[in-house]
């Protein structure tokens, strides 16, 4: 379970998270929606301890993420993350991309790491690309590689940061299909997304971020179909035209 308790985060004098509370249970899919600069991506970075927080606590399976004594490299093994920019490692083949972290972080043997990587690559539909270099692939394929690369670490949670925002429109579908598949596998996921229809379809919970706070949270029915707050209604009417 991920527990986010009264989290405050500032960049200099700019406070981007102003007291966030959120719980994500095992097996849940939580979508985070909201305008640019509302702080939703920052929250993911704080869960992963890529960014520090100024106040509050984030607890992942009883581990206090930002406590001094926490081994954050070890913690991140639990938390797979996929970014807006896919960040494929250009000097490695697809198979090496996906097997590097199991090999050097989990200290797996080469063969075992390759097996796991192959399994995850097959899972996201890249079974025919093992020896390809990622720079020769489409954005959608590279993003699926990024997902497989994270899954090869056998994480308990997956954090998705606007993973379709940098893709050409015709490539969005294949990446969303991969996320649907993960949900069906029972993966616990937090998806920061602009794909409202997708969020409505796959989520157990939807959180609407507005100016650094969670303005509204609930089932997709409650938040996307029948929003009560004015800010939510405004935002949705803008993105759904």
């Amino acid at each position, binding site marked *: 379970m991920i527990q986010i308790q009264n989290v405050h985060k500032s960049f200099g004098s700019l406070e981007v998270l102003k007291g966030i509370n959120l719980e994500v249970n095992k097996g849940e899919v939580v979508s985070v929606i909201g305008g640019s600069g509302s702080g939703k991506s920052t929250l993911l970075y704080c869960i*992963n301890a*890529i960014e520090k927080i100024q106040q509050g606590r984030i607890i992942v399976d009883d581990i206090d993420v930002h406590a001094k004594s926490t081994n954050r*490299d*070890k913690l*991140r*093994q639990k*938390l*797979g*993350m996929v*970014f807006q*920019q896919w*960040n494929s*490692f*250009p*000097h490695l083949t697809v198979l090496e991309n996906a097997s*590097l*972290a199991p090999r*050097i*972080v*989990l200290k797996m043997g080469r063969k075992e790491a390759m097996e796991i990587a192959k399994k995850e690559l097959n899972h996201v539909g890249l079974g025919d690309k093992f020896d390809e270099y990622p720079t020769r692939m489409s954005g959608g394929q590279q993003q699926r590689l*990024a997902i497989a*690369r*994270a899954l090869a*670490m056998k994480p308990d949670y997956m954090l998705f940061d606007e993973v379709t925002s940098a893709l050409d429109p015709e490539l969005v579908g294949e990446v969303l299909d991969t996320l649907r598949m993960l949900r069906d596998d029972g993966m616990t996921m937090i998806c920061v997304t602009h794909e409202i229809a997708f969020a409505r379809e796959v989520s157990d919970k939807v959180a609407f971020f507005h100016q650094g706070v969670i303005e509204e949270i609930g089932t997709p029915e409650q938040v996307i179909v029948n929003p009560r707050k004015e800010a939510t209604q405004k935002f949705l009417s803008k993105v759904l035209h």
Partner: protein
Amino acid sequence: MGNSFFTPLSWNDTGFILTGVLNTVTISLVAIIVGTLLGLAVGFIRAEANRFTNILLGGVLDALRSVPLIIQLILFSTYVGAIGHPLDPFVTGSIVLSLYSMAFMSEVFRGGFESVHHSMATAARSLGMSYWQTVAYIRLPIGLRAVFPSWLGVALSVIKDSALVSVIGYMELLRTSEQLISRTQQPLEILIGVGLFYFIVSYPLSLYGRYIERKMAI
């Protein structure tokens, strides 16, 4: 009469010339290897360090890069000798040439490290890799690839600049040829030969660098 001091170039000079060739190759290799290792470390520090450290380091590197190598060689050998530690010309030459190449290579490597976008490192860290694993497996290999052609360019100029070490008495190729010239009075043949040697070493390497550059541009 009058010519009796001079004896023409002969096959017997081959050994002497080869000594010069060997010494040029040796000091160039030393300077390239030491310069590369130090340059990697300094380049990495510059890419990571705060502004204050960078201003300090940058000043030293600027001095090494802007003062002509020949002046650095003479200054170093004169003053280190003067404070009571006369050094062998090979040692002096190696130190000065290594530092000189370090100054250029550190900038090349710094550029390499900085060319790897920080989001790449963040992605690696998010997979559980430690800071140093990210450096060793991601930032270093990607950065080195990007700057390999520039590194090769610096290495080539180090080979050519090694000729200047002759001024402090190191018996590299130029110095041996100067001695041969004063004995044989055949400067044209000898200097053309020496020039040819540098060309034969440098040209294939620079062609290779251009080939790599083109390959990476695709």
